[in-house]
């Protein structure tokens, strides 16, 4: 009966991103927030493992107090409890510092068999959290897992690498990061959504985790974010009008003229 920890995060819904036309900076405020896609796969995988082998799955999230709807969503899907790590001092933490915060919370939660997280987040897509957390907690890691099986007290996983599939095994405790292809996250039923309100949500601040506020957030992070600017693609945006035959002919002529055909 594996004891599982699932790390997840809230991100802005990238479909709603807009650019400030004056500064060319990205405007991320006031945009709908959601659980990062791959993290939903991690939550789903933990629930599937629980359905097959029993055990318990605790979700852990570093976020603003406003991320409670995402916590409720994760609990509705089937996590047993959640742990919100929220402190103004955490603001501006880089990925490796977030891993340090999560590591402190996971230690405080007690012994576990598996940590699951998404391979990467949909905002930063750096895929650093899993390996950094595994290093902090001195665990073996299996990244990019596209299939996971539990065999007694060990896990067997298929990893989707650049050049092929690698099947690896490791004994508990172990950290896994999962790909989007591993499963299809479920939608919670109304009954599950109602039941989620009764589930336990722990809330811890930096002091509860024994973290000095100098070691986290903007001032404690080795990486400094200087600027986020819109990444525009310069395209000609020429519509080829007329009948289909005319448009097709113009297209071919333009492409020949561009020297790309």
């Amino acid at each position, binding site marked *: 009966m594996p004891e599982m920890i699932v790390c997840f995060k809230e991100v802005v819904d990238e479909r709603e991103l807009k650019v400030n036309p004056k500064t060319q900076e990205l405007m991320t405020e006031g945009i709908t927030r959601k659980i990062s896609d791959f993290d939903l796969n991690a939550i789903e995988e933990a629930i599937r493992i629980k359905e097959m082998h029993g055990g318990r799955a605790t979700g852990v999230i570093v976020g603003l107090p406003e991320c409670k709807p995402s916590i409720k969503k994760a609990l509705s899907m089937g996590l047993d409890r959640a742990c919100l790590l929220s402190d103004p001092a955490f603001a501006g933490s880089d990925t490796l510092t977030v*891993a340090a915060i999560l590591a402190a919370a996971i230690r405080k939660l007690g012994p576990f068999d598996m940590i699951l997280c998404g391979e990467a987040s949909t905002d930063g897509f750096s895929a650093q959290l899993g390996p950094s957390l595994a290093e902090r907690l001195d665990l073996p*890691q299996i990244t990019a897992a596209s299939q996971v099986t539990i065999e007694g007290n060990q896990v067997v996983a298929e990893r989707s690498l*650049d050049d092929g599939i690698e099947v690896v095994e*490791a004994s508990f405790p172990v950290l896994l990061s999962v790909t989007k292809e591993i499963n299809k996250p479920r939608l919670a039923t109304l009954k599950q959504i109602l039941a989620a309100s009764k589930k336990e949500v722990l809330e811890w601040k930096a002091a509860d985790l024994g973290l000095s506020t100098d070691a986290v957030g903007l001032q404690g992070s080795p*990486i400094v974010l200087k600027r986020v*600017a819109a*990444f525009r693609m310069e395209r000609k945006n020429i519509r080829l009008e007329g009948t289909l035959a005319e448009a*097709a002919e113009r297209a071919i002529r333009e492409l020949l003229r561009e020297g790309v055909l």
Partner: protein
Amino acid sequence: MKNEEYRNVWVFSEVKEVALELLSLGRQLADSLGVELGALALGNGAEAQASEYIAYGADRVYVGQHPALSRFSVEPYTDLIAGLAGQHRPEVLLIGATKRGKELAPRVATRLGTGCAADCISLTIEGESRALQVERVVYSGNALAMLTYRNRPQVATIPPGIFQRREREENRPGEIILAELPIREPRTRVREVREKEKGSVNIEAAEVVVSCGRGLNHPEDIQLIRELAELLGAEVGCSRPIAADLQWLSEDHWVGLSRHKVRPKLYIACGISGQIQHIAGIRDARIVLAINQDDAAPIFQSADYGIVGDLYQVIPALKEAYQRIVKRES
């Protein structure tokens, strides 16, 4: 340890071709800092690799040949790289952003108590502070983040194919150093390695790509796309739903942020709506032609040329026009 006590630029990739690209980038950075360029060669054949690395720009190569390094495994590789970096204190450590490199770099950085920036596409040295300044794509290709570092070493991963390797220089002087460090056996065991199921498609190298998306109604209609591709000497690509959800084409056709990023002269998007994840995969195409029934499809904003129309009619019209024009003019 103060930042000034760190010196030199180091590069590592477990893939030789990527290591050569990093050597070229590393050489530029080392020259602008006025320091040496070091490289790490680990595993089987590391010594032969070391002389190659010198020919491609390294001043010093650290060779690790422990049996636990013979095939890549993140734990022993972390032991060795973090161990060496702890001893010799490079100010910059560049690691190839292969899947393996990306699981390695954050572990190394975490062990060294420093920061790591992933998938950097531009790296420069800020004059006075000697700090590395990097750019990376965030928000599914919508934005570019500029980052810098407080600590040393400054660890960055670099995607393959961004930087060109230098000319090979025979008889370039350089030093090879055998690295002996305690290494632990990995706690993961490899049971099996198999190839990914795929055809013979190398879409990332294609000069012309004809790609399809949800605008296709039936799997057999991919034939229409294939015919146009064949006529133009192109590879067939697709958006996520065709490869992942419907599985009408294998994953090696899948163009997008999480699969293949293409850089053809011409990309023809047929019935692709243009989700930003897809757009992130075609950013480096020189010319994009989009065909879509929906006048408001976002793909048109990311296209040089657009035809609003049913792909089942537009593609035959394109084939006909191509045959007529090219035939007449040749």
